[in-house]
Each structure stands twice: as structure tokens, then as C-alpha cells.
């Protein structure tokens, strides 16, 4: 028995020394790659195949490739970090300890930790998605004008409802007016629908969680079966609402990624994010001139113009007029001539081949009649960016 113990001890020592050596090797070998290192903190796993974290991870890796970084070597990830300041802070310490030059945090609840750690590590750039805090040196926030893409998807839904002679359009949403992110999307989509079909009624079903496949499914079923909706739009994590639309022979607009593969007979188009547009911009600036990061990149809220948001390619399920109308609206938004939450409404008319857009001054009103913007007034898009929007516009009803 003693012999066995001594053998085991020897083996353990040998194994430990191999580990120690391996550790040293990697520490020395680390310098071979580029010196610029990217850190990321995810709410889910980088190995997800769809959803929010997947979209960001895809954006970061694509962005890195664009500017000549190798995601396999220069990217450090701490994943599955809940919105718990202590855990986020420890994740940041890990990334800082590994020498990351820029650290991205993708979830809103990381905000306190990012604020605190930006002070503690003045040499590292902190970049926080969906937040509202920043400083003038090394801490910014970023998000996009996804509402612009939602307006375009609304146009596609509006034409479909005209074609089907059914004014009921459904929207499965994670949250309602609690979050500007969700209600701005609903409002913008609704205005897109009504620019084509003024009689369109948008029914919102709120599932009260960012993602739950079962609830997303049930919500879509209710909207179709009980409320007779002919198009199902969504703001939730999975493609379930589109799959339900496909099963029940109605149409739909996905979100986050092109959901045509999941719902080939139903899908029209989906508002999508091109996160790599931001990530490449931010990493390039942090790499070349970190001292001026806040003047060069700053708080980042781009939209259609920068290609940060867009709609996925229109499918054959779309009505004939859709493409022309979307192109017209896109042009108005990218040129800066017009924005969704202003006192000017667009209306589309004409058959395919001769679709025309008209602008009319009309007040932006909530669904209980309160005026937000007077007719002809300027856009209140800041309410979306700063997160204060907390109402539905005319034509929107929450059904649950």
C-alpha cells in the first residue's frame, strides 16, 4: 500500500510540474500574436446558434476579421455572466488581467460594473451595449436605431394585409411599454404598416420575458386564432412565432436574423442587426488611437445609414409593391430627410412599378390620444435612444 501511495504522489508531482511548464509556455508564447486583445462579456454562451449573444459574438468575430485580428487568438470571453455586479466585476478583472485593450459588455445590467471599472482601469476602453452611461475618456455605450428597420418591415406587413384584405396584424413582444426598446419597435413597425394600410390594427401580445420558446409559440397562436392576425411580427429571442405563422398558413416578420429558413412559406423580411459594423469601428479606433476613442467613436447610435441595422432580403412571399416602397422609405431615412418619430407621416400608393410616397404633416399621438409631437414637428428619436419612450402610438393595442 505504501508503495502505491508513493507512486501516486510521484505521479501527482509529475502531472503538476507538466501543468506548471505548460502554463509558462503559453505565457511566453502569447506575445507572438498581435498585441491588441479584445475582451467580451456575454449573458449567454458564445456557442449559441441563435439569439442575442450569438448575434453579438458573430458581430465581434466578423468585426475582428475585418480589421485583421484573429478571433481564435486575440479574443477573450467570459460567458454566462448574469446581471450581477460582483460577477461582472470579476469577469472584467479576468479580462484586464489577460491584457485586453477593449472590453465589450452586451447586457444592460452590466452597467454598474462597467461604470466602476472604467475608473479603475483608465487604460482599457469599456464599451457597453444598450446602456446610458459613459465618460469622456474610456467608457461609451452603443445601440442602434433598429426602429428604422422595423418601420421597413412594417411596410412589408402592411402590403401583405392589403393583399389579404385583413387589417389585423399581430406582434409577439418580450415586453410592452416597460422598455423603450420594445415599445419603440412596436410603434415604428405599426407606423410602417399604417403608412401602407391606414386601417391596419396592430395587436401586441406581451410575454414578459426576453425569451421563452413556449410562451412565444402560445402568443403567436393566440394572435392568429383569437385575433385573426394575418401577419405576425416579433421582438423575442427564438423563431417560434414565425414557425407558428408558417404552420397556420399566415405570414410573418422575424427579428435579429433572417428567419426564412425556419418559416419558408411565411417569412416576409426581418429587421436585422449588423453588429460587426459597430464592433469593427470601435476596435479599429481603440487599436489606432485609444486616447481619442471618445471623440472618434463616442456613444454610438447608428442606424440604416451606417448599415448597422437593415432588413433581411425580401422573400417571394412579399407583395409586389413591397420592395419599391421599402427602398423609398430607406432613402428618406438614410438621407436624414425624414425620421419615424416625427410629426410627418409617410403614405405609399400606386401599383407595383409606380409606387409613390407622399409626406403629410400629422401629429404623433399615443393610443390614448395624447399628443407627443405636433404636426410637422421634429422627431423624438432621442426618446428611443435614451430609453424614455413608454407609450404605444395610435393603432396599437396590447391584447393581454
Amino acid at each position, binding site marked *: 500500500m505504501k508503495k502505491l501511495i508513493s507512486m501516486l504522489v510521484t505521479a501527482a508531482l509529475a502531472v503538476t510540474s507538466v501543468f506548471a511548464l505548460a502554463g509558462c509556455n503559453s505565457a511566453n508564447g502569447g506575445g507572438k500574436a498581435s498585441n491588441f486583445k479584445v475582451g467580451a462579456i456575454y449573458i449567454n454562451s458564445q456557442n449559441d446558434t441563435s439569439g442575442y449573444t450569438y448575434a453579438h459574438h458573430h458581430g465581434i468575430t466578423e468585426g475582428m476579421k475585418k480589421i485583421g485580428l484573429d478571433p481564435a487568438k486575440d479574443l477573450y470571453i467570459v460567458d454566462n455572466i448574469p446581471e*450581477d455586479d*460582483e460577477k461582472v466585476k470579476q469577469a472584467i*478583472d479576468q479580462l484586464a488581467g489577460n491584457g485586453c485593450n477593449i472590453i465589450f459588455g452586451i447586457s444592460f445590467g452590466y452597467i454598474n460594473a462597467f461604470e466602476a471599472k472604467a475608473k479603475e482601469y483608465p487604460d482599457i476602453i469599456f464599451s457597453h451595449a444598450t446602456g446610458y452611461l459613459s465618460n469622456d475618456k474610456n467608457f461609451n455605450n452603443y445601440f442602434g436605431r433598429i426602429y428604422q428597420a422595423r418601420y421597413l418591415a412594417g411596410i412589408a406587413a402592411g402590403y401583405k394585409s392589403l393583399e389579404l384584405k385583413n387589417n389585423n396584424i399581430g406582434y409577439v413582444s418580450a415586453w410592452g411599454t416597460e422598455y423603450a426598446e420594445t415599445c419603440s419597435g412596436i410603434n415604428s413597425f405599426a407606423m410602417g404598416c399604417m403608412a401602407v394600410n391606414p386601417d391596419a390594427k396592430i395587436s401586441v401580445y406581451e410575454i414578459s420575458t426576453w425569451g421563452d420558446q413556449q410562451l412565444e409559440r402560445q402568443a403567436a397562436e393566440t394572435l392568429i386564432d383569437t385575433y385573426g392576425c394575418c401577419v405576425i411580427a416579433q421582438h423575442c429571442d427564438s423563431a417560434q412565432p414565425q414557425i407558428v405563422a408558417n404552420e397556420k398558413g399566415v405570414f410573418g416578420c422575424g427579428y435579429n436574423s433572417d428567419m426564412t429558413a425556419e418559416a419558408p412559406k411565411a417569412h416576409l423580411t426581418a429587421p436585422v442587426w449588423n453588429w460587426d459594423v459597430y464592433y469593427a469601428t470601435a476596435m479599429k479606433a481603440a487599436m489606432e488611437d485609444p486616447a481619442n476613442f471618445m471623440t472618434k467613436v463616442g456613444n454610438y447610435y447608428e442606424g440604416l445609414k451606417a448599415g448597422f441595422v437593415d432588413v433581411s432580403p425580401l422573400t417571394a412571399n412579399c407583395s409586389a409593391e413591397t420592395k419599391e416602397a421599402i427602398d423609398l422609405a430607406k432613402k428618406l431615412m438614410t438621407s436624414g430627410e425624414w425620421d419615424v418619430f416625427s410629426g410627418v407621416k409617410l403614405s405609399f400608393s400606386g401599383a407595383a412599378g409606380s409606387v409613390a410616397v407622399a409626406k403629410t404633416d400629422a401629429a404623433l399621438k399615443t393610443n390614448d390620444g395624447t399628443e407627443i409631437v405636433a404636426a410637422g414637428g421634429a422627431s423624438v428619436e432621442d426618446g428611443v435612444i435614451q430609453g424614455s419612450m413608454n407609450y404605444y402610438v395610435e393603432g396599437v393595442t396590447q391584447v393581454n
Partner: protein
Amino acid sequence: MKKYHLVRRADAKLSRTLIFYAVGILVSLTIGAIVLGVLGINPFDYYGKMFTIGLVGNRYGYKSIEGLLKIFVPLLITSLALSLSFKMRFWNIGGEGEFLIGAITASIIAFNSSGMPNFVTVLLMCLAAMISSGIIGIAIAALKVRFNTNETLMTLMINYIMLYVIRYIGETKADWNFFLREDSERPKFGTFPDSAVMTGIPMGQFKLLWSVIIALALTAIVYVYLKYTKQGYEISVVGDSSATAKYAGMSVGKIVLRTMFISSAMIGLAAALTVSASGTISDTVTNNVGWTGIIVAWLSKLSVPAVFVTSILISILQYGCQAAATQYPAIDSNYADLLQGLILFSVLVADFAANFKIVKKEEAKNA
């Protein structure tokens, strides 16, 4: 067909247990290495980083040690507390819930403490947390003593009740809710004022938090309490046989109430130290110590020195897994969890194998 029986080994030897443990860990690491190999990662490299908790080449290594200690302190105290009640055969699996109650009451004081002296605030937080958690513990013990309710169910349910209480607080924006950041449109837990944030002894850049010293002192106290005091002796008698305790003239009900109060109050203390050290609260503040503590307590056979060692090892495993995973973009925390699970499972199997053997039925009579 032959039938086999499990028979407890008559000769429990420490050396055999250690060898079985080593073999178990080696097997689990080998399985982990195969997975790493399939993913194209050098397992020696990975394990090297894991067991050195990513310290090699880390430019803020002292922060890793601080982070490790922040995981270790609550796990140690909670495991000690659970050992106390397990020793009495009182199945307290409500560590999570008791922790959360303590965390909430400590935070109530913390959020309203600006301007108060740091020492006073932290002391008040600890006391409030200990009393509130202790009351819940004593209430469940009272139900057991008075009505013979099932304490496993009662303590289990407390976990979920408290989890939803803290989620409610964290997600409800309202005037009364001082837990949340005021300037945020979305609900988000705020940060404690400096008066409620744990300080420590600076040692160069490294800061040794008072919570670590308190945890170490508490370990010594619990050790002495169980081994050398009358109350500690009473706990083990009740655990061995409450009937014996009764015949020996002990008031079993009183002992159960007292011990559960101490056990829950210690978990409350762990919670207060944790929220004070991190300067905030969240619905994941427990870091699952209420569950992990059960494993620690059992792996340690409810022995205080063993709880101490096991808590260190499990903290290193947890922290090291994350530290190593950070350096490989392909490895996510699911792998880290898998590896932790494999190691714990194989140690439990090894423990079982060290204490039991399989014999054929006909031999069973003679064994």
C-alpha cells in the same frame, strides 16, 4: 444469475479513500481532456491554467486572489452552517433562501446608511442578517419540533420563495424601492454607499478583506464549539439518536431550535459579508452556496477541518474553470460546469467505493 450486494467496508482507511479520490479525479480529468482534445485544445495547457486559476501571465494576479476569496468566504461559512444542522440530522437544504433573506435585510441597512461610520454599518448589516435568517431557521425548526413537519420540504421551499422575493425587488420600479438605481429607466440594482462597503487590510496592492478574517475565526469557533462544548456534544447525540438524547435528559426540541438558529444565522452572516464585500445585491448573489455547501458538507463528512479544505478546493475549481475558459474563445462556461460536475461526481463515486464494496450474495452473510 448471480446476485450482488453492497456491503459497507468494515475497515475505513484514509489512505484508501485518498487513493480512490485520486483515481476518481484522474478519470474525470481524462474525460475532460478527451473533450478538450476533440475541440482542438491542449488539455495540459488548459488544466495548467485551471489549477493555477489563471495566475500565470496575469497582470492583475492579486485581483484573482481577491476574487477567489470572495467565492471562498460565503462557501466556507455556509458549508460550516449546514454541517451543524446535518450533524443533528436536520436536513436544512434551505441555504439559498436563508442566504437571500440575510442579503436582503443587510441591503436594506446598506442602502440607507450613507453618512454612517463604516464599522457601525457593516456590524449592523451582519446583525440584521443573522437575526432575520436565524428567525426563519428557528421558525422552520419550531414547525418540526411542534408539528413534526418535514424540514426538507420546508427549507427547500424557502429557497424559491426568497428567490422570487428578490426578483420582485429587482424588477419593480417604484417610489418605495430604494434597492434600485434612481437614474435608470430600466430596473437595475443600485450600488451601496461607501459606508456599507467592506474594507480590509491593504497588503501592497492586495487587500485582505475583513470578511476573510471573520470566516477564518468562525471556522475555529465552530470547531471548538462542536468538539469541546456541551452544546456541541448535544448536537451529535441528537444526531445519533434523538431517543438517546431524550433518555439522557436532554431537551431535544430546545437543541434543535438553538442549532437551527445558529446554522441559519451563520448563513445570514455569510450573506451580509458577501453583499458588503461586493457593494451590491442581485438575485444571483448566493453563487449557489446553499447547494454547493451541501456537497462540501457531505464530502467533508461534516468535519470542520475537512470543510475548510474542501471549500478551498471547490473555490479553486470554480474560479479556475472560469479563468481557464476565458482564455479559449471556443470554451464556454458550459464546459467549465461539465468539468466541475464530472470531478465532483467522480469524487462522490470514489467516496462511495472507498466505503462500500460489492459482494456476491452468498458471501454477504459472511462479510
